[in-house]
């Protein structure tokens, strides 16, 4: 037990690692237990659930959600109603533009860059509306959600771009070291942004802004710049998810990505990131995204009727998190 008399003098390497680990895992570590619990239950009741193939399958399906949730987590971490409703539409817009660039015969890399830049640009506009105009994030990104969706509908006129070159298809449907590409893309992005969040000044500033925007500003943090960056990242992540998505689907259409924002928000929040800002983080988001995906997978495997699926999804999420709150957070 700590006593005043034993003022801390130094920390050993171990103590630092432990401290960093608790900081990174934060309150969301227990959500992993929830995930594990879900997996255990499903492996008992769902046929063919417990197989390497199925797990790879689930990870592949979760990767899109994970990529989008990276951006969403950063945005929600900045607090004060920070939210990005536009990612579904931005995903559709940027991937359709990339697809039409591909169809127009542009090289794969150029098309990818086009897609990513459009996503980033949409994000930047969101950020500018939030910081410079001072719109609530909800309104700014709600507007972007509508505008980007409308734009892609008008641009595509309901048509579908179908059939991409093998080079482009590799991103979504290829394999590397026996792993599906989407999983690798999501893994790499995740690793990069976890590093950014926990080991760079930028990451610390994101947390500080979320925890107390005024204090952060008075500490010399360039709040607007950080927010701009965060929203831009969110847009770019949406575009990135979109590219993987259309590559996997081998088609691009204007309606993709509807309600993705809600899923990404759900993954983030179920992963323990709070709308209060400055609480939670990327690690929990993985758990959140996997929980949602495993649930859907399990319900398909169990052959639960379409009508019941939504009900099961909702009740499992609520009861799972309730359980978590009771047996984990309460006991502390």
């Amino acid at each position, binding site marked *: *037990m*700590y*006593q*005043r*008399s034993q*003022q*801390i*003098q*130094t*920390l050993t*390497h171990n*103590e*630092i*690692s432990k*401290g*960093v680990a*608790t*900081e990174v895992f934060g309150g969301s570590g227990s959500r992993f237990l929830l995930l594990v619990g879900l997996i255990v239950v499903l492996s008992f009741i769902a046929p063919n659930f417990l197989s390497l193939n199925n797990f790879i399958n689930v990870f592949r399906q979760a990767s899109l959600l994970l990529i989008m949730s990276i951006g969403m987590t950063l945005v929600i971490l900045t607090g004060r109603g920070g939210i990005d409703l536009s990612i579904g539409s931005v995903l559709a817009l940027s991937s359709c533009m990339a697809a039409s660039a591909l169809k127009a015969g542009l090289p794969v890399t150029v098309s990818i860059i086009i897609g990513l830049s459009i996503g980033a640009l949409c994000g930047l506009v969101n950020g500018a509306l939030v910081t410079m105009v001072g719109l609530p994030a909800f309104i700014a990104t709600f507007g972007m959600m509508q505008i980007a969706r409308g734009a892609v509908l008008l641009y595509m006129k309901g048509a579908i771009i179908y059939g991409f070159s093998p080079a482009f298809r590799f991103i979504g449907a290829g394999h590397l070291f026996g792993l599906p590409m989407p999983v690798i893309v999501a893994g790499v992005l995740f690793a990069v942004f976890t590093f950014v969040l926990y*080991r*760079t*000044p*930028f*990451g*610390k*500033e994101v*947390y*500080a802004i979320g*925890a*107390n925007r*005024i*204090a*952060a*500003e*008075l*500490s*010399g*943090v*360039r709040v607007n710049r950080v927010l701009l960056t965060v929203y831009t990242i969110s847009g770019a992540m949406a575009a990135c998810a979109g590219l993987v998505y259309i590559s996997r689907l081998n088609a691009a259409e204007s309606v993709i990505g509807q309600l993705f924002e809600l899923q990404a928000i759900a993954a983030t929040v179920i992963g323990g990131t709070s709308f*209060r800002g*400055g*609480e939670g983080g990327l690690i929990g988001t993985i758990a959140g995204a996997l929980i949602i995906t495993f649930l859907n997978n399990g319900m398909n495997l169990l052959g639960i009727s379409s009508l019941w699926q939504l009900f099961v999804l909702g009740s499992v999420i609520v009861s799972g998190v309730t359980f978590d709150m009771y047996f984990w957070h309460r006991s*502390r």
Partner: protein
Amino acid sequence: MGDGPLLKMVGITKEFPGVKALKGVDFELRAGEVHVLVGENGAGKSTLMKILSGVYRPDSGRILINGKEVQITSPRKAQESGIATIYQEFNLIPYLSIVQNIFLGRELMTNTAIPRMNYREMRVKAKELLDSLGIQISPDTLVKDLSMAQRQMIEVAKALSLEARILIMDEPTSALTSREIEHLFDIVRALKASGMGIIYISHRLEEIERIGDRVTVLRDGEVIGTKDVSGLSTEELITMMVGREIGDLFPRERVSKGEVALKVEHLSRRNVVKDVSLEVHYGEIVGLAGLVGSGRTELARLIFGADRFDHGEIVISGRRVKGDHNPSASVRSGLSFLPEDRKEQGLCLSLSVANNVILASLRRLFPHRITSPRREMNVTLDYVRKLRIAIPSPFRAVKSLSGGNQQKVVLAKWLCTQSKVFIFDEPTRGIDVAAKAEIHGLMNELAEQGAAILMISSELPEILGMSDRIYVMHEGRIVKEFTRDEATQEEILRYAMGGVGGAA
């Protein structure tokens, strides 16, 4: 007054994860007395009081009021048991008006068929209350529009409106200047005479003998002793609190002053700051005195770039600041500003101590844009030791620290920037005597190393003890400049109250 004690707390213990905040504390309060509770930062004073006011449940121990055991399970229960509390950290809701805040939880209702809130009556009562406290603000003002000191007075008003038998005051004067303190003390005396029992927590030891009847000293969650105030010397008290003697509280030494570090000319903003000119040299500590609302905080914010000014000019370290003056530019040009309101403006409460300490120095500490936990910890621990911040680990969230330790974290954040020019707004607010001496020592050191310091303080002894020069503000203007030797408490007050020259 009454025979038995009004309140008895027996064997109270409370443990937070990793910290034993209270270890079997006994405490007693009589009707009609002011019982002062003192102790170092983190000794457990606020925790004890929060147990009494129902915010925390004790792990063990009993509470008796008038000899009857009571279970205080919620703040509501505490109110019903006749306990009113002025919390150390503010207990007001920014977007509600003063009236709404004062009566929150106990609104007066009309006796019409469909009862509704009787704002008319509440407003009248609130006005009376505010008048009796000498506060001239409309009761419909939103709390967010008040200054720290005004909020503190509203806290007092809120607690008084409860008409309780037991009043807890956790550092009620930490943001007040002498005039308000006088006023408050008058009220406390009146309450005391009416038979109320008052528990009074403060780090301003001179207040103890002026208002206290008995004093209990807490250290590391244990009661060191309870004494009558009369006949107790300050030295004795300090030894009880700290377990050792402390150095000079105001160790200011003269150093030769250098170039002009900060120069402000004809600075104005709206009606709050009017045509202010001042300068601070390297190696100099300049005090800024004034009454509540005299515009000192606003002036500091203008200089730092937190608010925009209408006219005038500011020169920091020889460079004139331009229109794009903002906090981040100020920080980068080596100006530090410690705000008076640590909770709202100073700290990221949910983040760790380490993250708060390094927040303003990220660019300096990690020029390659990659942080290193080891470096963070070393830097943080450096200041934790220097300022004697009582924490079990630098990973601990700041919100779990005691008020004084939180204040030290804010200080650490700014010391960590290694700036050359500092503006400290109430730097020792809520800090215990021992630590205060150390912080003063640190400020001295800074000045010796050539830093320029502009210090706003509502504690005149601090201003007098630490400053080389003193500016006095009244209603947004600087009305007087004193050198260290000219200044006396009376003179400063006279100018601060507008008694000379200014429009009184």
